[in-house]
């Protein structure tokens, strides 16, 4: 009987260790957000070129993450990229003339959407479209332009 009890205690300890490890993976290693119930609201933005922007990329404002990219789609009529942004509902006072940029974190880092507030008194609501956008900087294009201007400057 004592042996059976020891086994039960050890199995209990094993299961606790397993779940602690799982908890550690969930909380410390991954970006599980317990406030995941916050669905936020959706905005769309059209870009001529989004570079390599992917779904789940951060949307930041003044360097702080305020949402995520939900989807990147292609509009075959206008040949533009349609990016759906999910903004945290705490940030519900974005002006109508907010400016959306696709930036790169670091020289070769991941791409993200940066929002810059405008001055309009009207605010963006769920489903609205951000009208003012600027495309991603494509590194190859910039290098090409730089070399081209250098060459023409010398000549």
């Amino acid at each position, binding site marked *: 009987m004592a042996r*059976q009890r020891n*086994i*039960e205690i*050890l*199995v209990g*300890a*094993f*299961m606790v*260790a*397993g*779940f*602690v*490890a*799982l908890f*550690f*993976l*969930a909380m*410390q*290693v*991954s*970006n*599980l957000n317990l406030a995941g119930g916050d669905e936020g609201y959706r905005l769309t933005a059209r870009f001529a070129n989004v570079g390599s922007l992917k779904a*789940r990329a*951060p949307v930041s404002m003044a360097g702080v993450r305020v949402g995520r990219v939900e989807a990147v789609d292609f509009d075959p009529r206008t040949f533009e990229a349609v990016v759906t942004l999910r903004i945290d509902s705490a940030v519900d006072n974005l002006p109508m003339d907010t400016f959306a940029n696709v930036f790169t974190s670091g020289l070769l880092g991941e791409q993200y959407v940066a929002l810059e507030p405008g001055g309009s008194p009207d605010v963006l609501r769920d489903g609205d479209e951000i009208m003012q956008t600027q495309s991603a900087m494509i590194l190859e294009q910039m290098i090409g332009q730089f070399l081209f201007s250098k060459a023409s400057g010398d000549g």
Partner: protein
Amino acid sequence: MLFDPLARLGRGGLDALARFGRAHRLLLAMVLGIGEVLRRPRLLIAQVYNVGVLSMLIVGVSGLFVGMVLALQGYYVLARFGAAESLGLMVAASLVRELGPVVTALLVAGRAGSALTAEIGLMKATEQLAGLELMAVDPVRRILVPRLFGGVLAMPLLAAVFSAVGVIGGYFVGIGLLGVDAGAFWSQMQSAVDFREDVVNGVIKSLVFGVVVTWIALFQGYDCSPTSEGVSRATTRTVVHGALAVLGLDFVLTALMFGG
């Protein structure tokens, strides 16, 4: 005479097919016998002890060293691209997605699977299973079912321990030995490793591996020829087939989960 080789080939094929069928009928019988575990949880606890607790040491130590080696090797490559801060991301993603579930399943196949096969095979060779049947006790329900569910329950927990210990090992090597910034190590990891995409998929993988490894071990024991030679061959087959099944299934699961 002329058709002898052809007949041999055909017999081999039929044997393999019959074994395949017996294995699946055994799995079905075991899954249908889940009530036995609910009625006698003690049997399950003893098997979680056999598979889980007794594998804890090898899984923990392996996880620590795998994490430490990953950090050392990863740093070497990442530092060449000036991305040494991504070390935490690399260590955690590879552990949670792949190495945790797969290496744990391989270790369990070697450590616990072979023991299961030998145990069942010996029970069969010494006619204990037949004895149970004489007493109107179904050996599948009484002996095999608790072992299957014990393995299925223990595997994800062991894999989680492996990954967690591995991340901590990578942290010690990365911060202590290589001088990576601790804040960047954790923040890069947290911003890129997703709970549902990476952690939950890893748990699903190790659940599947738990079923497959224990199933193969139990079937090999249950189906072995009841001699000492037969038991030894069945034990070898458990490790070989278990490892092959885990690696093959891992490719399929990875393609399904991350390939799309």
